[in-house]
Structures are given as C-alpha cells and as structure tokens.
C-alpha cells in the first residue's frame, strides 16, 4: 500500500501490461477485483431472483394481469387468485408493528445511550442483542400461549368497551387477529430498533452535547433537540431495517394472525400476510396456476419491499435536506 502504483509509474514509465502487473503485485487490483466480485454477486443474485419469480409466474400474470393486485378472492379450487387481502395484511400488520415498536425502541435507545449508567446500558444492550437472535418460531409460540390469551381475555374486551365505537375495535373476539400479528411483529423488531439506534446515538460527538449544555440547555433539551436530530438518519435506517424484517416475517405471523384472507377494518378480525400464505400453501400447491400464483405473490412482496425501501430513501433525503436547511 505504501508504494502507490502511480508514483512508481511516474518514476519508471513502462507498457500497460507491466503497469497492470505492477498494480497486481501491489495487491490493490486484486483487492479491487475481489470486492467488486462480492458486490456484483449481490446484484446477480437479486436479478436472478426477480427473473425467476417473473418467469415462473407467467400463467397468473397473463390470466389476471393487474387485477391480481386488486382481486379479493383466493380460491385454489376454482383457480381464482387475488392478492389484495395478503397485501393488505402484510402492510397493516407491519404498520401496526412500527406504530408500537418505534416509540418503544427509540425511547429505550435514548435512555440507554443518554441517561442510563454505562453498566446498566451495557447489560441491557447485551440482553437486547440476544433477543434479536431468538428464532421467530419462539416469538410465535409466545404469541400463541401468552399474547393471544391475554388479548382475548383482557385487552380486546377492554378496547371493545372503551373504543368500540371505532371500526378498528369491533366484531367478534377470537384472540388470533391482525392485532396479535402486529404486536408479535412489534416485539420482534423492537430489538433491532433499540440496538441500531443506540449505536447511532452513541456515535453523536460529545462536543454536540457539551455545546448544548454549555448554552444552558437542560439534559433533556440537549438530548431531544441536539442529539436525536443529529442521529435522525441513523434512527430512520434502524426503523426501515426493522420494517423490512416485519414485511418478510413468516412463522411468528402465521401462528397468531388467524390466516384468513379477507380485508377487514377491524383489528380484531383474522388476517393473512403474503409471506405466511406462501409458506403455508407452497408445499401442497397442486396445479400450475396455483403454484405460479404463489410465486407471483413472492414477486408482489418483492415489489412491495422495493417500493417501501424507495419511500424510505425519499424520507431520509427529505429529512436530511430539511436538517441542513435549518443548520
């Protein structure tokens, strides 16, 4: 590394081949090539994935066209396939999860990075990182045996009695429901938000805090008005990472969401998600149209993820520009 190829070339100009070999010997070119291959392989895998999903979903794409996205019926017997209930279930359960997990996760991250004594912060962070590694089926089991009964016996009757005038809290109470799915997802993604947000908050330069405190800000003012805005982009990134996990989560969701492909305003009603229906029906899907409709659902989930990630980028760009303008 110390002997940069350019300086060598300047001293002793030679043919192109020699130049290349020289750079190769320096190791730079090799490292460049290896890392390029690593990066390219990601692109190749993604392109191949989309291509395969696209090619193998030709039958339903031709048969249903765009109405696949809006169809409400999923009937393997008559061969009628519509993705709307699954798209709805995926988006709503993930949104619900974010609604619960973001305040909880960001709040916990702020406490751990700004307020907690370092020892408590370190121990708690260790536990949170353990939580992030728990297999989703365990969360599903917790959901089935603890969350769902609590929802059915305590939470849902309470919500129905107090907020029952809202369409979200009406209808029969089963326990397994969109609400249960969203809550299990929330529990699963909170560790991601806390873990990444805490790192980002801790990376905010001490000078920022000291300057704020020096100007007479209270601890909370310095945290909320200086540190958190400084770390905003990183916190957003943690949230979108968590959202990506929520969108694709299969096992824990299918165990508590009720698996009923219907669009229903009530959070008490069972619902279904894209990832869950693919996992549930793929093994026994007989008939080409049925199988390919499931593959097309995979494509839809992919598009949904791209769309949401794109939106996420826009949000980040917009908020950073706003921050810059303020500064």
């Amino acid at each position, binding site marked *: 590394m110390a002997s940069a190829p350019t300086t060598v070339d300047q001293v002793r100009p030679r043919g192109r081949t020699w130049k290349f070999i020289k750079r190769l010997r320096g190791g730079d070119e090799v490292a460049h090539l290896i890392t390029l291959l690593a990066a390219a392989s990601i692109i190749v895998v993604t392109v191949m994935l989309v291509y395969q999903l696209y090619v193998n979903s030709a039958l339903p794409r031709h048969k249903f066209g765009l109405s696949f996205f809006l169809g409400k019926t999923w009937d*393997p017997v008559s061969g009628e396939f519509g993705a709307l209930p699954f798209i709805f279930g995926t988006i709503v359960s993930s949104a619900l999860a974010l609604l619960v997990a973001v305040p909880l996760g960001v709040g916990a991250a702020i406490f751990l990075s700004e307020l907690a004594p370092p020892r408590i912060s370190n121990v708690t962070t260790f536990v949170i990182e353990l939580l992030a590694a728990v297999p989703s089926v365990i969360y599903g089991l917790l959901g089935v045996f603890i969350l769902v009964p609590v929802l059915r016996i305590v939470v849902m009757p309470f919500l129905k009695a107090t907020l029952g005038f809202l369409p979200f809290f009406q209808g029969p109470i*089963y326990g397994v429901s969109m609400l249960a799915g969203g809550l299990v997802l929330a529990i699963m993604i909170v560790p991601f938000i806390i873990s990444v947000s805490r790192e980002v908050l801790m990376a905010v330069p001490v000078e920022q805090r000291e300057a704020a405190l020096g100007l007479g800000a209270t601890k909370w003012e310095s945290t909320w008005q200086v540190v958190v805005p400084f770390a905003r982009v990183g916190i957003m990134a943690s949230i979108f990472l968590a959202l990506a996990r929520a969108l694709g989560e299969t096992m824990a969701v*299918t165990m508590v969401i009720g698996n009923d492909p219907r669009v229903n305003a009530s959070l008490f009603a069972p619902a279904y998600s894209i990832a869950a229906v693919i996992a549930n029906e*793929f093994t026994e899907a007989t008939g080409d149209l049925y199988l390919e409709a499931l593959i097309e659902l995979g494509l839809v989930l992919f598009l949904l993820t791209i769309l949401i990630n794109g939106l996420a980028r826009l949000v980040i760009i917009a908020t950073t520009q706003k921050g810059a303008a303020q500064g």
Partner: protein
Amino acid sequence: MKLKSSFASIALGAALIAGGVIALVDSPSAAPVPAPLLINAAGATFPYPIYSKWFTEYNRIHPDIQINYQSIGSGGGIRQLQAGTVDFGASDAPMTDEQLQQAKVPVLHFPTVLGAVVPTYNIEGVSQELNFTGEVLADIFLGKITKWNDAALASSNHGVNLPNTDIVVVHRSDGSGTSYVWTDYLSKVSKDWETKVGRNTSVNWPVGLGGKGNEGVSGLVKQTPGAIGYVELIYAVQNNLPYGQVKNSTGAFVKADLASVTAAAASESKKIPADFRVSITNAQGKAAYPVCSFTYLLIPSKIDDAAKKQAIKDFLHWMLTTGQNDAEGLSYAKLPKDVVSREMKAIGQIN
C-alpha cells in the same frame, strides 16, 4: 507486505478447498465397501412416521438398499415425480388426470395405509362425545350454523346440554391432505359445499380461523371457547383430544378408530378401480367411519435402472405383507385384505 501475505493465505485456502473437493469426489470409488443402492423418494407428510419406520427397517433387513424419503408435501412429491428428480413419489390424494398426463412415464398408485380425519371441539360445560351429521358439519363450516344449541345439532345430541354460544370454526391454514379429505367428505354430503367451496388441499374457506398444521388447529381449538376444527385421527389419539362421532351413509354414528377406518376401505373395495385412484369418504359400510382416505406411493410404471426396479418391487411386496403389521402401532389403519392382494398383482405392471 501484510497484503501480500494475506493474498498468499487466500491462495493457499483456495488450493486446500480445491484439494478437498477432489478428495470428496474421489472417495466413493476408493471406498472398499460397495455403496448401497440409493433410492430417492419425496412427498406426503401425513404418512411420514410410518414411511420413515418402513424405510429404516427395510434398510436393516437389506443393507444394500437405502430409501431416502423427504416429506416435502404431496404437491412437491407429485411435481418431483413428474420432473423425474425422484425415483418415486407419495401423495395423500390420488393424482388428477391432468397431473398424470404431465408425468414423463405413466404413474401407478399404490395405497399404503389409511388415515382418518376427525372433528374436535371445545365447548364449555360439554364433556360428552358429540354426534355430527355430514350436513351439520358442512353447514357449520359454511357459516350457516353459528350457535352450538342450533336445532340441527341438538337433534342428533339428545341429553347433551348444548350452550347458546357462538361456534368458532378452525381450519388448516397450510395446504394439506387432511384438508383434502375433509373438504372431499363435505362435498359429498352437501351440494352447497360442493358448489360454493369444493375439495382441495386448500380451499377458499367461507368462515373461520386458520391454524398451521394439526398442532395449530388443535391449539386454536383448545384455546378458543366454542371452537370446532378437524385434525388427523392419529393426532387426536396421541394428544387425547376430544372428538366427535360422525354419521355415515347408512345412518349410524361411528367413532373413528383403526377398525372403523379399515372397515370403510373394505366396504368400498369393490368400487376401487384398477388404478386405485378413489375417494373412500362417505363409505357405504355399516361400521365404516365416513371421513377417511388412502395415502399412496406413486411409482413410475417404467423404471430403466434394473436394480432400482427390482428393489422398488421388492420393497412394495414387503410393505404389503410384513410392513402392514407396523401400521397399527403407529395409529395408521392397515389396508383391507383384498386391496393388498390386488396391489400385489399391480406390482407386476412395473417394467
């Protein structure tokens, strides 16, 4: 310097890996003991416990033959068989005409054991065994009967104090042979069900919650007051779930057990076609339990590899004789005698 040495270590690593691969490729031919004949099969999950027992046991008797069975689901088994990536497949439901046409070589069906599906429920204050007619079950799963004290239910359950509570229907969320047998039965006993819903491994359920697997369904039923679902007989027996009797086509309420399931197959045996592709739900016999079905091995009628062909034929023969004795220990109903003798003859169709 540092970079150079790390490059050298990468090269060394690559060389080691390459060497390892070569060694791996080399090793089978260098092995002194001849490798056993490997037969690959894939398909249904429902009979997996007995298949795995059969294949292990058969391998112990014939160490030169090893059957590797992957329980990836009936749909996957049929597709792999059609594509020719497995030597034989397995399915809970017989292949459709369309599926048979897509296979490269004609496929033969060999029933192996019988399974049954039972209604399980959770009603507060009711400990008795309930009686269900086919029509009532269909109407419950159609969402037409919504209360446990409905007159149609009460009329076949005299003396049971059925409460005025809502019925919560629970069905399988994953595609499964169990759902196929259940919906096939409901289609036979209810015109309404046949036209509105139909039969398949997954259907567009008019009402209810979906649970993943037998354990998902029984878990939801246990947890939810007023719930009714359906599970495999084996699962209900092994987990001591309460399950109801179902009225068969002769008018008798029959409780599912190994005898009543075999009786269903026996009573239908005259109607079983030469290719064994038959639904035996709603069977005619007096002692027959109406919600049951065969599960099949799907064997290509033409196997090019002579050693494999002989091995598969021998295994089928063993499965139909000695193997059948293992069935009841694992709560599968065994085949009726005349089905066994007809299958013995069918083995001859494999060339």
